[in-house]
């Protein structure tokens, strides 16, 4: 609820609401937490429980048609003074219109889960597995959520900010 005043403040500053924001707001009214544009890149911050609904609209809406999922990644905001520690970042592209969009969804610290978008874009398969592998974020509905790069019995999530650069001695204990 505390986020509510923020969009009202920012709305007058950006009077021409972009097509993407308008179409998503029409169909999922409460989903968008913030909108920003910098360096020519538009960013939507959406609620993580409504992420899948937003993504479905972004993909299938005839005016938007973001049919190409370029990338999925996450950022550990431990040292960034943000409210939520983890944010999952999606990069979409509507290649016919030549439009790009970044969608970010912050996750609650006690429940690192977000819906998988594998059913919308098959390319999400390994991208989501890598985020799970590196950050421990669980993608609900992913058909085969296993570690991608690290060994299956690797206990930590190496791209988290509290994981040391030199590891925790896994190499020394590894049996060849």
């Amino acid at each position, binding site marked *: 609820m505390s986020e509510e005043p923020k969009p009202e403040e920012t709305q007058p500053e950006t009077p021409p609401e972009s097509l993407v924001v308008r179409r998503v707001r029409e169909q999922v009214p409460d989903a968008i937490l913030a909108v920003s544009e*910098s*360096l020519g*890149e538009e*960013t939507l911050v959406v609620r993580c429980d409504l992420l899948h609904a937003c993504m479905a609209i972004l993909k299938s809406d005839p005016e938007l048609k973001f*049919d*190409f*999922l*370029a*990338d999925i*990644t996450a*950022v*550990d905001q431990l*040292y*960034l003074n943000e409210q939520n520690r983890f944010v999952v*970042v999606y*990069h979409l592209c509507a*290649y016919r219109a*030549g439009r*790009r969009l*970044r969608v970010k969804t912050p996750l609650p610290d006690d429940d690192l889960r977000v819906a998988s978008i594998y059913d919308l*874009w*098959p*390319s999400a*398969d*390994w*991208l989501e597995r*890598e985020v799970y592998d*590196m950050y421990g974020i669980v993608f609900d509905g992913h058909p085969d959520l296993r*570690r*991608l*790069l*690290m*060994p*299956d*019995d690797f206990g930590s999530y*190496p*791209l988290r900010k509290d*994981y040391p*650069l030199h590891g925790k001695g896994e190499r020394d204990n590894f049996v060849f």
Partner: protein
Amino acid sequence: MNTATVGSMDRTDMERIRQERASFERAPDMPAETMVLNFGPQHPATHGTLHMVLELDGERVVKATPHIGYLHTGFEKLGEHRSYNQFVALTDRMNYLSPLSNNIGFVHAAEKLIGIELTPRCQYLRVALAELSRIADHLVCVGTASLDIGAFTAFLYGFRAREVLYDLFEAVTGTRLTTSFARVGGLLRDVGPDFPDMARNAVAESLKATEEIDKLLTHNRIWRDRTEGIGRLSAEDAVACGATGPVLRASGVDWDLRKNEPYLVYDRLDFDIPIGENGDVYDRYLVRMEEIRQSARLVLQAVDRLPSGPVGADADHNVLPSKDDVYHSMEALIYHFKMTMEGHGPIPPKGEAYGSTEAPNGELGFYIVSDGTRHPYRVRVRPPSLLHFAMFPRLIKGHMLSDVVAVLGSLNIIAGELDR
């Protein structure tokens, strides 16, 4: 032809395979028994280290399960502890076929974040170098793909021409493979006066090799039997699975970042984007062959129009000053010191940027989050190979065992950027 090695499987793999076999549903006319074959991690046709567990019915691939991570080096983690110019050296190691393209791809994203405008000379030089490395990449890709299928001669022709290109890279950058040549806002140094002639010579040699490979393969009955209709990817699937570059264009999708989201000076140069029809191994080969010719056009145009002037952009605190200035001006020496010492380097403002370039294999994206310090807070590499290899099980399903290397060769998986 020996296409796979029956390696020893460790215990965890056997357990996983048992589970996978248990979940597999057989068609009614299929025999009850299938064989599990390990392809890799060490196999000449993987051109890197990757591992596939192939489930075979006779010689037909029923299911392929890729396992990756053998070359996982933690570049993204390491990048958070390196300055922007230091990260350029890591981008070499991600792609051992066209490191220059990776150098240029990363600094493109960093410059977008910092807001640096490049000098015209730097832009034309980057185009020339990126296209030369695209030619080298495609020559190796076509050469090794044909080697895997059994056409040894084309491989030798490709590598002979690549040698000329690598001599050029050595003359320009000082190294053959780990070029680390791009710097934020410019290049490591200017090229020598003989660069245009060397580039023209390298282009001529590459085109000669391309024509020779073309004569050997394009209408070769054996080559076409091995490649036509193999590993087909429809245009819809290609977009949905995140294919980019020659793989996407072979499926008939007209999408190339150099045309659609022009960067550097690609919008001022004249070139065409080849498009395939069937999206099979043969079309991917044809697209790569035509891209070599188009890249040759681009190199010649860039070299002919190469403007004079400085290479480094005019942004004092973020761009390495030229060596000449460093020797003759105290301010430049101080800036040089500030740029290269441990803990120093370009400092972008707080923010985030996603910059992507058309690397030889497809869209190479770098997503950088900056917290306003000299180290990136987060560097994400979006490698084309990761998405391409992820769809491999889809492409190979139902094909013969010997087609595994054909499809793998056509995707040009670079294990370095696959695992990062």
